[in-house]
C-alpha cells in the first residue's frame, strides 16, 4: 500500500505552507515542521533569520519516537497521552501539537521566543491545518509505480549495494 500520511498536495499544500510561515512570523520560532509518526518529514519551514537546522531526518525520527514513547508512558498510567509536549533546553526548545492520529506539528524555538506565544500560535496553526485537511477537496496526483518502476529502482539498489551473486 502507498499513501500520503496527510493529504498535503495542490492547494492544500500551499495553504498549509502559508500557515507554517505565519506561525514562524508570529511566534518568532526558528522552524516549523509536520512529521508523521513513522518519523518521516512531510513539510518544513524555516525562519529567514534561523541558522541551518540539524539533519531533518534524524530530528523527525527522534521526535516521532519520543512522542510514541511518551504516549506509551502515559498509557501505563491510564492516560491516553500527555497534554503538554514541550521540551526546553538552555537555548533551544521544541513544542508539539498532534495533527490527527498520524502526524505532528513541531515548532522549534530559541530563547528569543516566548514559550507562551509559541504554544498559542502553534495550537492555532494546528487547528487551522486540521480544518484544511478535513475539508481538502483536491485529487491526489496520479502516479503509478508499476513493474518498470520497480525494475528501475531495483537497478539503483544494485548500483548502491552491488549486483546479486548469481
Amino acid at each position: 500500500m502507498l499513501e500520503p500520511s496527510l493529504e498535503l498536495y495542490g492547494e492544500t499544500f500551499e495553504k498549509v505552507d502559508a500557515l507554517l510561515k505565519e506561525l514562524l512570523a508570529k511566534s518568532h520560532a526558528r522552524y516549523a515542521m509536520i512529521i508523521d509518526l513513522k518519523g518521516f518529514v512531510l513539510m518544513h519551514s524555516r525562519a529567514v533569520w534561523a541558522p541551518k537546522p540539524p539533519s531533518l531526518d534524524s530530528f523527525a525520527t527522534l521526535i516521532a519516537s519520543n512522542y510514541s514513547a511518551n504516549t506509551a508512558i502515559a498509557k501505563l498510567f491510564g492516560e491516553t497521552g500527555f497534554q503538554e509536549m514541550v521540551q526546553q533546553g538552555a537555548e533551544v526548545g521544541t513544542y508539539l501539537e498532534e495533527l490527527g492520529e498520524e502526524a505532528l506539528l513541531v515548532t522549534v524555538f530559541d530563547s528569543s521566543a516566548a514559550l507562551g506565544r509559541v504554544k498559542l500560535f502553534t495550537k492555532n496553526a494546528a487547528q487551522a491545518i486540521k480544518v484544511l485537511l478535513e475539508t481538502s477537496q483536491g485529487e491526489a496526483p496520479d502516479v503509478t509505480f508499476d513493474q518498470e518502476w520497480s525494475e528501475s529502482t531495483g537497478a539503483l539498489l544494485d548500483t548502491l549495494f552491488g549486483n546479486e551473486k548469481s
Partner: protein
Amino acid sequence: MSTINFSAREINFKIVYYGPGLSGKTTNLKQIYSNVPGESKGEMVSLATEDERTLFFDFLPLDLGSVNGFKTRFHLYTVPGQVFYNSSRKLILRGVDGVVFIADSAPNRLRANAESLRSLRENLQEYNLSLDDVPLTIQINKRDMPDALPVEMIRQVLDPQQKYPVFEAVAQEFQGVFEPLRAVSKLVLEKLAQKA
C-alpha cells in the same frame, strides 16, 4: 505501509533490523553506514547505553536516487534485542515496510533466535500485520564462529517452510551485510509495484 510525499516528490520506506540481543543488528547498520557512498546516506543516530547496547534504536537514512521524478528513500532502524525492551521494539515497528531478521549462529542462542522471531510475530500483530504482509529476509550472522551451528539447523527453527531468503554473514567483517538489505528492499519495491 510505504509513504508518498507529493510535495517533496519522495517515496519513503521503513526497514527494521530485528533479532535477539547481541546478534549483530547495530553492527550491520554501522557497516552499511561505513560502506555506502557519502551522497547516499544521512546521519546515523544511535540511542545506546553506556556499554553500547541498543537502548531504543539505531537509525540510518539512505537515498537510493530518483525514478520517474520521485526520490526513493529507505529509513533503516534496529530494535533493541534484549528481552526486556519489548515495548521499544513494538514502537519501532510502527509503519514497517520490510524486516531483516538477524540470527545468531551460536549454539546457545538458538532458542533466543526462535523467541525473537516469535516476538516479531506478536509485535506485528499489534499493527494488524503478519509475516505474510511484511517482506522478510534472514541473515545468519557470525558464521566465523568455530562452534557455529549449521545453517540448515538454524533455518529449520526459524523458517521450516523455507519461505524467506536466507543469507550467511560475518557482519563484523562486512561479509553478507548488503545482500539481505538489497533483497528485502527489492521485495518491498516489488510488493508496491504489484499493488499499483
